[in-house]
């Protein structure tokens, strides 16, 4: 087990050591049971997890393992039925009200009646930013996701990849420290996905945000993350937490290195172990 034997290496220039271990999201014995017509379903059981400032944490696992549910609990879109969770030291709902995080959904979900720029302005309007600062923020995040010059277009005039970039820009627009992403690239093809993954890492290095990222893809999880949370279904729980040994600076070619393959192997083992409970 290579991953655990080595301490996590932090080579990002901006992130100081003291700051790095400051916990942002802490879950203790978290439980969530949904009442359905087929009886109760345990979506999360006994989930313990700490996410530190500046972490890039991926959640990976098969359908029904609770990875999306956990992200939704962090975002206060679901209420846990047991245990406790804090976000920035507050309850998730307080964190939501203080606009602590940006959320990126599986689909871009841009409003077709608004231009790209107006879509990015949407959270800013709701949060009461001034007109001039709205313009500044929009210009800044459009540049960040490489969509300068597209602000006047409508979403349906852009490709799927560009739409998803615009939705990331929308989540970044209001300076939240935390970025929660629920399979944001799941609907895109492999080539576009690679490109966006690269851009996302660059963006993370530049903004030093804390990112929670749900995915189905092992290479994606390993390539992006400082920490990989492997989950398994029925009941949804964490089976393994892998600290990545890859450097923060990651060209796409890193995916062919033995180190990368070793981590991917451990993730796959973790997923298989979870599946052993099946049937």
């Amino acid at each position, binding site marked *: 087990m290579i991953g655990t034997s080595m301490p996590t290496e932090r080579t990002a220039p901006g992130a100081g050591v003291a700051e790095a271990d400051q916990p942002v999201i802490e879950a203790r014995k978290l439980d969530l049971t949904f009442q359905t017509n087929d009886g109760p379903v345990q979506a999360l059981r006994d989930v313990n997890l700490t996410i530190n400032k500046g972490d890039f944490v991926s959640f990976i696992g098969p359908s029904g393992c609770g990875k999306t549910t956990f992200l939704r609990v962090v975002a206060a879109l679901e209420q846990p039925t047991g245990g406790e969770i804090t976000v920035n030291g507050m309850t998730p709902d307080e964190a939501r009200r203080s*606009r602590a995080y940006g959320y990126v959904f599986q689909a871009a979900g841009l409003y077709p009646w608004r231009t790209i720029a107006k879509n990015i302005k949407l959270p800013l309007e709701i949060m009461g930013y001034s007109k001039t600062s709205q313009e500044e923020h929009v210009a800044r995040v459009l540049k960040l996701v490489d969509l300068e010059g597209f602000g006047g277009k*409508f979403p349906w005039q852009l490709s799927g990849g560009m739409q998803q970039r615009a939705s990331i820009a929308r989540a970044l627009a209001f300076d939240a420290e935390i970025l929660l992403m629920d399979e944001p690239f799941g609907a895109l093809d492999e080539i576009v996905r690679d490109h966006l993954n690269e851009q996302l890492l660059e963006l993370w290095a530049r903004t030093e945000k804390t990112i929670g990222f749900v995915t189905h893809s092992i290479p994606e999880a390993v390539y992006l993350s400082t920490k990989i949370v492997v989950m398994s279904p029925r009941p949804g729980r964490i089976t393994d937490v892998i600290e990545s040994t890859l450097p923060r600076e990651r060209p796409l070619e890193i995916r062919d290195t033995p180190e990368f393959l070793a981590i991917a192997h451990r993730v796959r083992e973790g997923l298989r172990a979870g599946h052993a409970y099946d049937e």
Partner: protein
Amino acid sequence: MSNIFGWSIAFLIAASALNIAMANGEGRDQALTRFVVPALFGASLLVVWEGITRGLGVPGVILPAPSAIWETFQANTETLWKDFVQTFVKGALRGYVIGAMAAFLVALLVDRSDFLRRGLLPVGNFMAALPIVGIAPILVMWFGFDWQSKAAVVVVMVFFPILVNTVEGLRATDRMQRDLMTTYAANYWQSLLKLRLPAAMPFVFNGLKISTTLALIGAIVAEFFGSPIQGMGFRISTEVGRLALDMVWAEILVAAIAGSAFYGFVALVESIVTFWHPSQRRRR
């Protein structure tokens, strides 16, 4: 005499042959062809109508010729205009505006309570399928013979289609879009104004378009139950009684023009408001 009839049939055949040639020819997808083919078809129907009535000597009390209807139309523009104002502007339009606004406001209220929505939606759907024109005699009794009673009938007729469509439209946002609003900690009015109302607009306009025809029908039929001595429905029922069918047809021509212009206007506003909807995009 029957020559006219023969020529009209010949025209129909020639026009149809031309239409077939155009519809299967190379220019069939051009905008001009798309306009000419139905126009020619309509014209040939009018010619045959004229040929049958004039050529076979059909009496005017059964079916007047289009030319006779057109003459009556031109000779009575003043009467027709007054009838139009009485029925359409005073009765149908006012009722339409009041009914639409009432339905819209009720829809906003209903939407706030899930219980109300589940209770009112089936009732509204049921009401929208009923022969509501039947309440015309009652409302004429309550509101008198003038336009107020016609507007009242129109209010009731347009209310339910617009209500049902608006309520459905307000629910048309998907869960993800609503979750997005939650992550912004948006309040009710913010998410209503920025998300749900714009998303509901295609549905609202669907109801508004259905209701244009209903408004005109309501105003005309209500006049059958009593009206001052003008109005399209009044004119139709009295002129039918006098067997002056050319005048009846002239009123029907007015009704057709008013109906399609009204619908066209609402559809135009729709294409401006919901420019972003897939059904409207290709026009941009």
